[in-house]
């Protein structure tokens, strides 16, 4: 990367059903926190990028217009990105591109969803001819993919239950997480209601309201921040067509190539050894082994063994989603950016109770029929220093 780029501010709202605040007020919570973290005022910001999943989820069309004031974006360039659930990652990368290209010095990337003001499963259950009229929502799409992963890998069924427990226990350390279940057990997950075979209720993400914001700056500014920056070592996005004969949705090529590109930029040739922590987009528990394999943190067919051996727990050697992840809070428009932001917090040493020992972290997001992928590698050190 020709120019040093870093995250110098991170903010987020509490993830929950937030009927007591408006969309604008909830977005402002994250924006205010990110600006305070970076110790900047709106006059310092050159551009704003807004990440949001489908407007039909909560009913505001082109929300960048209504939110112009809440984001401090009046008088600024505002770009509204949308690529499915990966959108938060795309927005973060586009914001970083603006800095990398020298078109902006400081970019505010904002993301939110207010699922409680709409009906998520209704909005995702598209009518004919786009999908069968099952009202099955997102889980209905991913369940057969998970079944295929289990068939291929021979993973025992308790892997999904264990991931659900790991992430919920992590979430207890994160005050922003929606779901707090300190007493959760594998048995409880196993006995919870079957939603989309093999996905049980407690293996599923909640539907949350929430917002997230980050400030991305060039190295001239990142060197003078009150708190340590998270340096961007590599970033990439990839898209593939969602439906065609022979497509492998269990291990999508777009995800593999996306990660490989980011690793190449970061100088990573042995990802499991060179990455300390990963915040991955895991909306259903089985996606932990699926993505570990897809992005090269585990050998193909071996992702579930990392779970089995406890290596991805909070105290493991490759913690996954110490924040609690998507299983503990899913404001879809912000979910991708939250993964990228949490990775930044880890390498800045600012993750609070869910801080792990990390100098290099992955933020990952995916969307659509596992066809949109975004990933970045962030580090405590400026690229080229101690790496």
């Amino acid at each position, binding site marked *: 990367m020709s120019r040093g780029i870093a995250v110098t501010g991170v903010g987020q709202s509490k993830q929950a059903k937030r009927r007591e605040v408006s969309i604008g007020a909830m977005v402002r919570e994250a924006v205010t926190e990110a600006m305070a973290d970076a110790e900047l005022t709106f006059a310092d910001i050159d551009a704003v990028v807004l990440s949001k999943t489908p407007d039909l989820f909560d009913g505001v069309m082109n929300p960048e217009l209504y939110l112009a004031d809440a984001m401090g974006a009046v008088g600024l360039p505002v770009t509204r990105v949308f*690529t499915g659930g990966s959108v938060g990652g795309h927005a973060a990368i586009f914001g970083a591109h603006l800095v990398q290209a020298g078109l902006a010095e400081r970019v505010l990337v904002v993301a939110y969803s207010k699922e409680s003001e709409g009906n998520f499963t209704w909005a995702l259950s598209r009518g004919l001819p786009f999908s069968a009229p099952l009202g099955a929502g997102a889980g209905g799409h991913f369940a057969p993919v998970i079944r295929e992963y289990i068939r291929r890998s021979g993973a025992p069924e308790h892997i999904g239950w264990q991931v659900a427990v790991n992430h919920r226990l992590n979430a207890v350390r994160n005050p922003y997480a929606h779901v707090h279940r300190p007493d959760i057990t594998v048995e409880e997950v196993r006995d919870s209601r079957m939603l989309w075979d093999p996905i049980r209720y407690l293996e599923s993400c909640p539907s949350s309201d929430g917002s997230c914001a980050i400030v991305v700056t060039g190295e001239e500014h990142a060197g003078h921040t009150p708190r340590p920056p998270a340096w961007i070592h590599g970033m990439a996005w990839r898209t593939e067509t969602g439906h065609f004969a022979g497509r492998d949705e269990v291990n999508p090529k777009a995800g593999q190539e996306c990660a490989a590109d980011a690793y190449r930029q970061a100088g990573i040739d042995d990802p499991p050894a060179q990455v300390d922590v990963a915040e991955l987009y895991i909306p259903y528990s089985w996606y932990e082994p699926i993505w570990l394999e897809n992005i090269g943190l585990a050998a193909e067919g071996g992702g579930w063994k990392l779970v089995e051996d406890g290596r991805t727990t909070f105290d493991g050697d490759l913690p996954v989603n110490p924040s609690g992840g998507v299983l503990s809070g899913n404001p879809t428009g912000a979910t991708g950016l939250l993964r990228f932001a949490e990775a930044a917090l880890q390498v800045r040493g600012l993750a609070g109770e869910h801080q792990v020992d990390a100098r290099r972290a992955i933020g990952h997001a995916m969307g659509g029929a596992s066809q949109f992928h975004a990933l970045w590698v962030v580090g405590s050190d400026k690229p080229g220093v101690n790496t």
Partner: protein
Amino acid sequence: MRDVAVVAFAQSPCQVANRRDDMADILLPVIREAVETAGIDRDDVDFVVSGSHDFYEGRTFSYIDSLDAVGAWPPISESHVESDAAWALAEAWSWLQLGEGDIALVYGIGRGSLPTDLDQVVPAQLDPYFLAPLAPHRDAIAGLQAHAAIEAGLTSEQGMAEVVARCLNAATDNPLAQRSGHVDVARLLDAPYVSSPLREHDVAPVGDAAAVVVLAADDAARRLAERPAWVRGVDHRMDTHYPGVRDLTESPSTQRAAGRAAEQAGFSMSDVDIAELHTEYSHQEAVLTNALGLNGAVVNPSGGPLAGRPVTATGLIRMGEAARRIRDGKADRALAHATSGQALQQNLICLLEGDG
């Protein structure tokens, strides 16, 4: 700054409604035409970015279907804006500045005919708590803006009708226009109001179309086009949301974007030969030309949106039309403008130039 140029532009005809083709079907021939014009293979494209909006399509993730026309396999580098595709062009231009690739394909698709009732769709763009419940119909806020523009002396009902007549006349040379013809201003003024002081002809006719622009950088641009339309400056800005606190006769975001684009380009608005403005209503031409300080430029030689408004493709078509005139040698410098939101809340300016 890398030199980036429009090397190809293609567009499907603006139609009142296209019920025969789905999103990918409308788009596919347009992508083919643009790629053929540029003389490239789809594999030569380094980055793809598009603009559209689910609220017109009436379903979530609608843009995913358009990717079938792109052929995103093997995997591609790709992004999308959920607004007018002019903002996708701005993203492509920014991406090319990174130097990680030389060719970007930008597409926009807009199917304004799909909603049963635009009066329910358009107010969804407003503050959902304080403004949307007032349920202003699709042209209500534009009517307030037109009224303010007349009161401020920027235009008149006669002047607005003259803009419409000029645009429809210009559109007779545009085979892709949805509406065109030689119309009599006096007869236009006999029509009833739809949102006083706006008459039906003052409202850009909503319809369906797709548009594709191919951008190329440096040597690739020189190789792919005989006379590339160099994108010398791109900027876009946002105004406050609330119509009640805005002076609707002014467009500070347009002015600011134009100022920044002019800084990048090294020439100003008064130097352009033609201007393609995203006028969703006839009175907005006066608001925009006043904000921009255009000086003798021919405005909307294609007929502009008053001759066809395929919603989220409309702004990108302005870029394509401005570039077309440079590539044809009919203009040396051109301005393209795009807008989003009610009463010109968000505006984008793109300045283009041919080789001297």
